């Protein structure tokens, strides 16, 4: 998804586009070139349509299950609904103007309305972003990212927020935080976009900053502003079904291939590289979290293993298409340890109630992933950024470009700043429109009964 791949893909198309110049006269060759273009598009589009499906699968059932297994039984449906409603509502808003505001060429901070109501988004590729696939596919793929990002935040205020408030908040948040940051990092002319004319070069292949830092730090602030679940931390609040969470985590892992490898925007070797780096990071994250648990308490747990995998995945997202698979494994290892430390030690000490650890996993993972991309990004994997002489530019520390770490740091800070300010505004405004928290009585009853009038599991036979 990072603009890098665009450049990469352009190489492919250049091969074709350059040709007509030479032999414009031969109709047969022209037909053949068109056919080759169509064939290239078919292969890339095949992968991208699947990637769309995979990323959607991350939200539902992936994240929905992962989160809902971690809550108490009486909140299982309400938690699922927080993911599902994003699939419905954000989709429509994305079509109305979300996509346009991110990818329409506006200024350095936000797009414009040229693509509102999908106007001009059709079969022809958008050459700036993804020259080998239909513009519609690119739009749809980006949509799936916009859906999952606010859904991630909900983990921080699980089990205590009204359904309507959650929807209102998420919509506001989308426009206040996601839209500008995504435009800045990925949009044409975006302030942080090194591939399409930005000022500060931030490498974000698949959304480490755009998705994980924004959602993770927003999560932290919502957890603090909304306050703890009543009864926390004295009452026993254990995951009501780690079986659900386990299924969800596996779906997340699978879906993440679409998230990260799909961000190559075609079925290229870069996609393969990102795929492998992603997989290694997940594996390494699972291992290091398990090892940390084993050291601390003597037992590696299933919840630990899946949390570690998700931490590895979130952390490698930013660098997936810039780092080697081996670097992916290293990033995953670090992610597992650091996130474990945050979730298990720091959180419990500081005492905020980030109920499902949206901050501990996505915020922290996204943040360190952003920095580590500055360390491990290499032109051996991604040569999309060119020097004046046409050669591939050095990317990260390992390429001899230590300054990139600072760039990444600035990118992260900007992401965090937008996240905190935007979340604060969004939550305050939401509070003016509708009460945010469930009342005590509702919280005791549970979201399923109190908010949705149903139960996840029936009592009688």
């Amino acid at each position: 998804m990072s603009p890098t791949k665009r450049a990469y893909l352009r190489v492919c198309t250049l091969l074709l586009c350059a040709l007509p110049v030479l032999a414009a006269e031969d109709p047969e060759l022209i037909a053949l070139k068109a056919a080759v273009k169509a064939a290239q598009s078919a292969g890339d589009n095949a992968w991208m349509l699947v990637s769309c499906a995979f990323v959607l699968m991350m939200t539902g059932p992936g994240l929905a299950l992962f989160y809902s297994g971690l809550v108490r039984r009486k909140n299982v449906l309400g938690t699922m609904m927080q993911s599902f409603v994003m699939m419905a509502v954000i989709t429509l808003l994305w079509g109305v103007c979300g996509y346009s505001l991110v990818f329409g060429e506006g200024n350095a901070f936000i797009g414009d309305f040229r693509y509102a109501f999908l106007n001009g988004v059709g079969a022809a590729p958008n050459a700036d972003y993804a020259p080998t696939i239909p513009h519609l596919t690119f739009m749809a793929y980006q949509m799936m990212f916009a859906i999952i990002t606010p859904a991630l935040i909900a983990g921080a205020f699980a089990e205590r927020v009204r359904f309507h408030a959650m929807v209102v908040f998420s919509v506001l948040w989308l426009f206040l935080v996601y839209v500008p940051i995504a435009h800045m990092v990925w949009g044409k002319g975006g302030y942080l976009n090194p591939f399409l004319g930005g000022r500060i070069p931030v490498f974000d292949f698949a959304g480490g900053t755009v998705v994980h830092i924004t959602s993770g730090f927003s999560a932290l602030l919502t957890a603090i502003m909304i306050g703890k679940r009543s009864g926390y931390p004295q009452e026993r609040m254990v995951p009501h079904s780690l079986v659900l969470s386990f299924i969800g985590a596996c779906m997340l892992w699978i879906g993440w291939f679409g998230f990260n490898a799909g961000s190559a925007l075609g079925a290229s070797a870069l996609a393969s590289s990102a795929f492998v780096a992603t997989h290694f990071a997940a594996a390494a994250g699972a291992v290091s979290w398990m090892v940390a648990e084993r050291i601390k308490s003597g037992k590696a747990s299933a919840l630990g293993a899946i949390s570690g995998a998700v931490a590895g995945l979130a952390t490698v997202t930013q660098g997936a298409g810039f780092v080697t698979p081996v670097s992916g494994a290293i990033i995953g290892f670090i992610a597992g340890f650091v996130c474990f430390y945050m979730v298990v030690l720091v959180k419990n000490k500081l005492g905020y109630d980030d109920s499902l650890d949206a901050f501990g996993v996505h915020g922290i993972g996204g943040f360190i992933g952003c920095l580590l991309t500055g360390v491990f990004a290499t032109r051996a994997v991604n040569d999309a950024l060119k020097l004046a002489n046409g050669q591939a530019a050095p990317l990260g520390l390992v390429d001899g470009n230590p300054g990139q770490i600072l760039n990444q740091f600035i990118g992260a800070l900007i992401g965090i700043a937008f996240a905190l300010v935007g979340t604060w505004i969004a939550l305050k405004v939401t509070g003016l429109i509708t009460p945010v928290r469930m009342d005590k009585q509702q919280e005791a009853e549970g979201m399923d009964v109190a908010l949705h009038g149903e139960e996840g599991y029936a009592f009688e036979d």
Partner: protein
Amino acid sequence: MFKIEAIIQPFKLEEVREALKAAGIDGVTVTEVRGHGRQKGHKEIYRGREYNVDLLPKTKLEMVVAEARKEEVIETIMMAARTGKIGDGKIFVYHVGDAIRIRNNDRGEAAL
């Protein structure tokens, strides 16, 4: 010996058990039940079909205790389980004929 049967709000389980432990009462059997008393239920709607659900999740504790400790146990549960709102629950007391520890044939109060 008496059996003290307390039907309480599920989220009070921890608190009640802590209180009982503090009072030295360890043996207990817990069951997930649904109950109806004065507390109003709620409406559930599945594709337009409405159901009035007035059986709400409750937790039942059963403790068999020596007569001497009966009142103390009742008192302890009441203190810990009370929120003052409808739905707090009930305690029922039954006479127990005998008690046997399966492990070693202990009988009567010795088995508790």
